[in-house]
């Protein structure tokens, strides 16, 4: 019950209000631009609405993923796939949230093909990388390293962002937990919880190394 209340409170809170504000103002502006020559302005705002709806959908997905996990409805579906291709696709998806001058540097060692749940691994990568981008400044680089060995897959995501205090690291994977230095940055507090649960489903372990204002590295070791 407690969690449901929390969830509802969050749903109603900041994460939804900010995109809703954008939609509201953009709609209000589209209404005002009635002349033919203002088509360009109208388009700009419809684009904005579409992008924001995309964000809202992602947030909603996060909540739904947690719901599914709670109900035990998520299972790993193993298949063979190419990690290079997967990561390139992830990079494309992350493009929209990349800040000015931010870069990815990714490196794959070992086998190119792995035997895992593609969708879960993809969500893990997206989650960790989007966090790395969100918590690091403009013109910074995020490093992604995948090492595919015969019996293990090691995934490392590191950034030069705001970091996580030792105290916060203890609760990092709890549902709805937000770091004390992250309260002014948008987020639901669900992403890392989902990452940890997915890693668990893949028989993997998540660990974190971080120093405040220096950077953070997440490592996932999956035993095949």
């Amino acid at each position, binding site marked *: 019950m407690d969690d449901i209340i929390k969830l509802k409170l969050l749903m109603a809170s900041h994460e939804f209000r*900010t995109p809703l504000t954008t939609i509201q103002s*953009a709609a*209000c502006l589209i209404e005002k631009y009635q002349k033919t020559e203002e088509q360009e302005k109208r388009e700009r705002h419809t684009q904005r609405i579409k992008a924001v709806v995309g964000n809202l959908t992602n947030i909603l997905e996060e909540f739904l993923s947690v719901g599914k996990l709670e109900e035990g409805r998520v299972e790993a579906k193993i298949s063979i796939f190419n990690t290079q291709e997967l990561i390139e696709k992830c990079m494309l998806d992350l493009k929209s949230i990349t800040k000015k001058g931010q870069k990815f540097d990714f490196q794959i060692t070992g086998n190119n093909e792995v035997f895992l749940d593609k969708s879960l691994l993809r969500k893990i990568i997206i989650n960790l990388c989007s966090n790395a981008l969100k918590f690091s400044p403009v013109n910074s680089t995020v490093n992604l390293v995948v090492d595919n060995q015969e019996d293990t897959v090691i995934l490392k995501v590191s950034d030069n962002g705001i970091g996580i205090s030792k105290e916060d690291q203890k609760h990092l994977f709890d549902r709805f937990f937000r770091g004390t230095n992250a309260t002014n940055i948008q987020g639901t507090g669900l992403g890392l919880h989902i990452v940890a649960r997915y890693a668990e489903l893949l028989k993997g372990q998540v660990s974190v190394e971080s120093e405040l204002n220096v950077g953070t590295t997440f490592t996932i070791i999956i035993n095949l």
Partner: protein
Amino acid sequence: MKTILLIEDSDDIRETTAEILEPANYKVMSAENGKIGVEIANQDKPDLVVCDIMMPVLDGYGVLYIFSQNPDLQNIPFIFLTAKTDRSDLRKGMDMGADDYLTKPLQEIELLNAIESCLKKLENMSNSFKNTHESIEEFYQKANKHSDLSSLSDHRKINNIKKKHIIYSAGDEPIRFFFLKSGKVKTYQTNRDGKEFITGLFNSGDFFGHIAIIENTEYQESSEALEDCEIIGIPKHDFLELITRNQSVANQFIKMLANDIQEKEKQLTQIAYNSIRKRMADALVMLSKKYKIANQEKFVIKISRDDLASVVGTATESLIRTLSDFKADNMIEINGSEIKILDERKLVNLRG
């Protein structure tokens, strides 16, 4: 055109909000976090601030705190526009001195109304609290033009008062208050040692003696003609009736009283802390503002040393010494009881 500083970290909201405000005839300056917002405000003082709370680097509470500590910025109306909807957040924002607290998402009209009413409130405030001599002067003139107020003095008997004649004395029961048609009048208090301090100077067109009537006490001060005057006495009853009947006249008197109080407080601070030279300079500038006749090139006033000393709040001996200093500095010219201001700018600078 009024300038609005918009501090908001979400690019989408910042851009759309600016686009909504601009057609409403506001100039918009944008900042993507609190720190940049404060820098812009320091450089280019805005007329109003719309600020988000949750932002990186420096949040909205931090911005408001910095504003409240800076005398140049503390009077700028400040509106929070935030997704934080908890009552406790709202209370925190308002307690810190925000003028309004709007929660996202909001209708365009809510934002525009909030901005407009904040700006209007500020305008009203500054109208009633301007504490300069000019604005008091202007106000008295306005009050005088006001039909009901000037009708008070219409068709009433004009009394001619000779110079040095006492109009009323402290302790008298007020039965009338006065409109000065022409001439100069002082009000003053005397202490037990017989030292006099001037509490008010009046010129033609001024009302005086109304405070005791409003307070419903005896006169706390005495009033004396500085030169030959024409005054009109207005019965207490007529005045009180007008004030109770007519809200706008009452308001005008309230403002007059508020301005009086502020003037007195200023004077008190000066007496407490300023040197006699500063006070002397201030008194001369004040007299010139009060009594200077239009088109008069150099201001000349005939005032006794005793009267001048009790305006400045000092002993006559010290006053005479300071006057001679001023004369030696070529700021004034003295001719019997006549003082001519030669260099008003220097006096203005001197009073600080």
